[in-house]
């Protein structure tokens, strides 16, 4: 314990929780298990026990809960006492996943984005938007895995927004680090990106946007659907307006309070259908789908069933992790609905 004694939670943040339990129904892991230890309140009880030394940080059950948590922060908007659960979870993982204790997959992911040139290399074979400099003070954040996996997103933004600057030599925003036990690294990378991209940073990834705005300040960051202000004409298919659903990005909704904006855009593009529990985590949760693939599949299962029933033409995502998760889950279930980023769909509009 002595080596760990200086590694503590911010006491004032722990004190905020009044243990009322209002967070329980909002928590996806509690919904699966019904067990107090996998609820936000239960996890805060565990954090308090760790803080006061009643449990060692090495306790297996506690470590399991730090890992089982999706980090979706659905508990935050429903918390009447204003507990910053996301920050507490980041602190927890910062302590328990430090150094050798960090999961291998996370170590590998950190390596991949450890320098801007490596991030750049990731997209070597992906046709992302080209470098360009514009006179306005808005810069596109390209994301690391987004540019590798979904290069069309940045191309769509480049097409829709000729006025923004794009610089592929940028590095990682550090959200990955902050969520996976490297708070300092996460902050440093965000600041580095903030210097590289002066003015307003435009992000197409809810997770990156929320992290950047937490470190650099809200005024520096705009998520794409927040920023978009153009008028749109409805899209049709076989003469009927297309049916569109949305999967919220947890951090965009719960961290930045942005959820009306994408819906407003989609309502213009066709027949907007609210997917049941659209605000609930899809189970991607950043690296979670890699670390805990089975739990991740359990989380998304009811969502897939609901989406199948709705017979949507498009399911819109505002975060690359969600896009990847939804694409593969819908493919497995043979659901024909196409998963696209909101910028891609706008780019398709007449």
């Amino acid at each position: 314990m002595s080596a760990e004694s200086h590694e503590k939670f911010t006491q004032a943040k722990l004190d905020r929780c009044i243990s009322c339990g209002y967070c329980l129904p909002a928590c996806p892991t509690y919904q699966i298990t019904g067990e107090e230890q996998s609820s936000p309140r239960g996890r805060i009880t565990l954090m308090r026990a760790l803080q006061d030394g009643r449990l060692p940080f090495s306790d297996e059950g506690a470590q399991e809960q730090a890992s089982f948590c999706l980090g979706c922060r659905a508990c935050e908007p429903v918390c009447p006492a204003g507990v910053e659960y996301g920050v507490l979870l980041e602190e927890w993982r910062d302590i328990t996943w430090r150094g050798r204790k960090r999961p291998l997959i996370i170590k590998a992911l950190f390596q991949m984005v450890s320098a801007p040139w490596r991030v750049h290399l990731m997209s070597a074979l992906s046709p992302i938007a080209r470098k360009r400099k514009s006179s306005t003070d808005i810069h596109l954040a390209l994301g690391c895995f987004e540019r590798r996996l979904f290069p069309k997103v940045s191309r769509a933004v480049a097409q829709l927004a000729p006025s923004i600057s794009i610089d592929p030599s940028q590095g990682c925003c550090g959200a990955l680090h902050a969520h996976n036990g490297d708070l300092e690294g996460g902050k440093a990378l965000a600041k580095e990106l903030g210097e590289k991209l002066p003015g307003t940073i435009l992000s197409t990834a809810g997770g990156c946007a929320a992290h950047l705005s937490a470190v650099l300040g809200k005024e520096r960051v705009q998520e794409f659907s927040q920023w978009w202000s153009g008028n749109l004409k409805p899209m049709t298919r076989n003469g009927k307006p297309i049916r569109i659903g949305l999967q919220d990005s947890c951090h965009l909704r719960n961290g930045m309070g942005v959820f009306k904006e994408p819906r407003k855009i989609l309502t213009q593009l066709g027949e907007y259908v609210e997917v049941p529990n659209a605000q609930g985590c899809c189970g991607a949760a950043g690296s979670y789908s890699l670390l805990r693939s089975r739990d991740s599949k359990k989380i998304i299962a009811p969502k897939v069933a609901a989406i199948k029933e709705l017979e949507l033409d498009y399911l819109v995502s505002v975060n690359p992790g969600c896009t990847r998760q939804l694409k593969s889950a819908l493919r497995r279930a043979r659901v024909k609905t196409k998963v696209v980023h909101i910028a891609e769909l706008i780019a398709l509009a007449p």
Partner: protein
Amino acid sequence: MAEQSLASALTALLGADRVFADSAAREAYSRDATPLFRGLPEVIVAPHSTQEVAEVVKFARATKTPIIARGAGSNLCAATVPLNGGIVVSMMQMKKILEVSRNEMLAVVQPGVSTTELDDAVAKEGLMYVPDPGSKTVSTIGGNAATSAGGLRGLKYGTTKNYILGLEAVLGTGEVIRTGGRLVKDVAGYDITRLLIGSEGTLAIFTEITTALTPRPKSSQYGVAYFNTLADASVAVDAIVAAGILPATLEFLDNTCIKAVEDFAHLGLDSQAGALLLFGDDGNSESVAKTVGAMADISSSARGVRAVTLAPDVAAAEALLYARRCSLPALARLGSMSILEDISVPRPQLSKAAEAIEKISEKHSLLIGTFGHAGDGNLHPTIVLDKDDADEVTRAERSLSDIFNLALELGGTITGEHGVGSAKLPYLRAKLGDVSLSLHHNIKSVFDPDRILNPGRLGT
């Protein structure tokens, strides 16, 4: 019995996936929503059926192990904190709505169903499950029945005890009993249903609950009146009921609460006012308009009134209800700990109680915000304090004792709707007297001869 063998014996009974004995799980179940109370259980079990609950109780009886039934753990009287260790029985794997009968206006549910889940399900049939405790999104029907939970509609509609028709429960012997049923009228024998409701897990563990429902009101309307003091608002409340009006909602907040809520939720409340009275009614639109109009008129001419307005639309009404519901958490933001009390007094004594609580706050130099269900005389004085300030904690404890004495002097009670649990047990004798307490003790012996069900609480 050692933890290990307790866990392995229970695992043999229920299977490994229903039994938790690791440090993290025990820690997580060491608390409920009550501040200051904590106790580690030895093991947690999560049964899936009445039969499994019965087996666990029989095992606990054979080994003389304390056994504590728990729903969502949202109670505020430490009724589910395992202060004597033992087995926590989590009812959260039994959460099926078994039946909703429109004809009979009733529902049959397992105990782990949440209050909101039940109300949402019956809303589809045009029905309503009436009791609406502040924690309704979290709290379970089992927990509501075990504490006879109240809520914001008590004056017009009553509380949980008025809406439970029948129970299936496991006694302390492990025997399964069915009480009441589906009937509106049934006087065959003692009313054991009513005895079990509010027994806080000390007489039996509920495994199935039959609840009465009512038709869902077609419309509702709300208004707000500001007063100079909470006592002024109390006088207006008394005048409203004396005029023959029985509305669904008569809630109030004092200035401390108004300010806290306004800082938190920015609803445009008048934070200069000494008190806010929220009034409203539900039913058919004509009668609602008439009742709400009458309440506005009475308030407008009442002592110390500052302003009266009606909510123009549903959104405005929802905002007002939200203001009331978030009083506690908004207050809780003001300090590192808050202790919420729950006294109830006869309605005509409400203004005296409000004034006396203010004096108690001054006497002990404590921040006390008071809100409550004015219509039914139920007050929630809430002490906000610094948990690390030992002197302040001591002063808070003294003020609690003053508050309970005040309630009893005015002909009221130490708890209106939260329950006794461990938090209010020390004050129960003052409320009930020796004869009643001894009767409680004897009743417990009949239902639970080995005193294993939630020991150290009611019936001790």
